[in-house]
């Protein structure tokens, strides 16, 4: 096809097409799609048993608190931008909110600093009523409209009374989330610290309450040795047990998860918290503006390569058939073909 002496062949069309596609890529080609993000409040148990060194690789190289902090920092790396992470701590019987959920990408270093600086010294009391802490964590998550990530070893101190776990008053499953069991399965001694924060050995059997003697005595107390309804309602013998040793209390935490409608995962069994967290929570979708300009750009590149492929084919044709047939000359090894025109 020729217009005004200008020849329009498929090469012209291909170059023009490439140019048009490149300009399309330059202008940009935006697509708004829904991206799944997380909005989660992480509450970290900082009670004494979290100092037990039974995590890390090799086992025992990290204490549970370090492992929990590392897992949170890894989680931040595994979540997409626009996800938000809040932080709270738990000791005694309530969860305490440090800051509301904050966008993770823009505030990454500050969040990492805040997580790394969590310390067992921030605990304001020695007790560890895990169930009550979890329930108050659920309350805070509800007020923030976030999901909950509760990291604990499940070690109740003092031990639960014979009546068992205190009842959950909220609606199970109203707040979605994950309880993460931190710690090893083996029973491990808990380090003991003095007032100045130096480690002074480990807890002994007599250092910790082995039995919950608050409230009413259990029904079988009458059969205990030295039982006296007024002077020794729990029996006269000191309680014995192995509360001074700690392991992750899987059964207790699974029971709590079932009561509250949360999911349960064990940190020693998962490589990242992101997949169990996302599968435990409802998807939260935000529109994300994605630049799809690579689509026209890739098409432009393919078209341009095709154009050069065409030249390659013609060069080959020239060197052999066309050249030989049309001109009936002896083949010149250099090829009597020319660029241009």
């Amino acid at each position: 096809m020729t217009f005004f002496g200008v020849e329009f062949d498929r090469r012209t069309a291909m170059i023009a097409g490439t140019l048009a596609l490149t300009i399309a890529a330059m202008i940009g080609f935006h697509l708004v799609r829904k991206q799944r993000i997380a909005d989660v409040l992480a509450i970290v148990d900082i009670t004494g048993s979290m100092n037990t060194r039974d995590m890390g690789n090799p086992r025992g190289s990290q204490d549970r608190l370090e492992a929990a902090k590392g897992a949170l920092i890894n989680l931040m790396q595994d979540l997409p931008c626009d996800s938000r992470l809040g932080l709270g701590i738990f000791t005694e019987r309530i969860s305490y909110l440090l800051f509301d959920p904050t966008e993770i990408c823009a505030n990454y270093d500050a969040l990492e600093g805040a997580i790394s600086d969590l310390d067992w010294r921030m605990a304001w009391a020695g007790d560890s009523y895990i169930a009550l802490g979890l329930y108050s964590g659920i309350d805070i998550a509800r007020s923030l409209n976030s999901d909950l990530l509760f990291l604990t070893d499940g070690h109740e101190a003092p031990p639960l009374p014979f009546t068992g776990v205190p009842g959950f008053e909220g609606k199970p499953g109203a707040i979605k989330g994950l309880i993460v069991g931190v710690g090893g399965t083996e029973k491990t001694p808990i380090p003991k610290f003095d007032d100045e924060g130096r480690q002074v050995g480990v807890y002994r059997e007599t250092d910790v309450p082995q039995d919950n003697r608050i409230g009413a005595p259990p029904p079988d107390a009458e059969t205990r040795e030295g039982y006296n309804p007024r002077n020794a309602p729990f029996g006269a013998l000191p309680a014995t047990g192995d509360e001074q040793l700690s392991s992750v209390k899987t059964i207790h935490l699974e029971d709590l998860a079932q009561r509250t409608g949360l999911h349960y995962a064990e940190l020693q069994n998962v490589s990242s918290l992101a997949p169990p967290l996302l599968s435990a929570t409802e998807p939260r979708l935000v529109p994300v503006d994605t630049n799809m300009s690579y689509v026209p750009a890739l098409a432009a590149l393919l078209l341009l390569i095709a154009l050069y492929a065409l030249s390659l084919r013609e060069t080959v044709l020239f060197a052999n058939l066309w050249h030989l047939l049309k001109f009936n000359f002896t083949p010149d090894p250099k090829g009597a073909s020319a660029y241009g025109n």
Partner: protein
Amino acid sequence: MIFAHPIALYLLPLMLIPLFLGTQKLEGYPSLAVLPPDWLSQALAWTLRFAGVLAIGGIVLGLSGIALRERKIERFGQGAHIVLLIDRSASMNDTFAGRQPSGAEESKSAAAKRLLKDFVIERKHDRFGIAEFSTAPLHVVPITDHKAMVLNAIDAIDRPGLAFTDVGRGLGMSLSMIDEDVLPGSRAIVLVSDGVAVVGRRVQEALRTDFARRPVHLYFLYLRTEGSNSMFATPPSDAEDTPQALPERHLNKFFQSLRIPYRAYEAENAKAVKAAIDDIGKLEQTPIVYTERIPQYDLSRWAYAFAALALALLLAAKLCARSLHAIPGGVHAR
């Protein structure tokens, strides 16, 4: 220079193709050997080859998401590095009149939250850290220029608090936060509390040496509940004047004895709190170096534009091309 999708850079060798192949149609010609070399033609041929190289290169770089890295520029401004040390004891959730907050009156922590947030937003070049104290000192946010995070931490201060008020250890934690912060600049601690407990002798001594070690400005914003002791008033001679009876007065005296730049404010209502915060803002106007973030700049658009220019050149050359055969009359090249 960074690449969002560096894997696309594997396509870069495609840039070599135009050096060997042309975009123009090939036509046979019996022999070129008799023609003298034409420099203009050769220059044009090489120009078109390089246009092809640039076109492929531009598209590949665009695909790889080439961008300028986010940069931080240090600038000079007026401001300070401020640690907000906030009381989270349960009494902070009462009103200035010492009652449960009702619709009309806001609690002390709600007032502090609102005014501190305004303060953080107003102070453009300052860096903030948050520490809290109650029964134990709590490290919340390290000194940072991420305002969003600081504001989110201030948002949490009107949550139910804990029982006691261990201001001494709280100050110790603020000082250690200041030690961790390495950037040069004036440093200040703003202590916001509604009543303190006695700071023990040993903690006092430790604080005295800690404060002497580094220059820190200290501001004590005392949110006084109606009817409680003033920290400035001298008690009548017959009243007991001990740290146990009047802890705020004695804490104030202790701070004065530290020989550091120190100011105390006593606020009985939100207006007085606002005035005190404004005053702190005026005082903390020393020159500091602050970092300004220059966000990542996407260059892929420029790469595509570059490729488009090169392609336009190729297209122009193509449109200028005349066939040896297609010319009406079948005349060969003139």
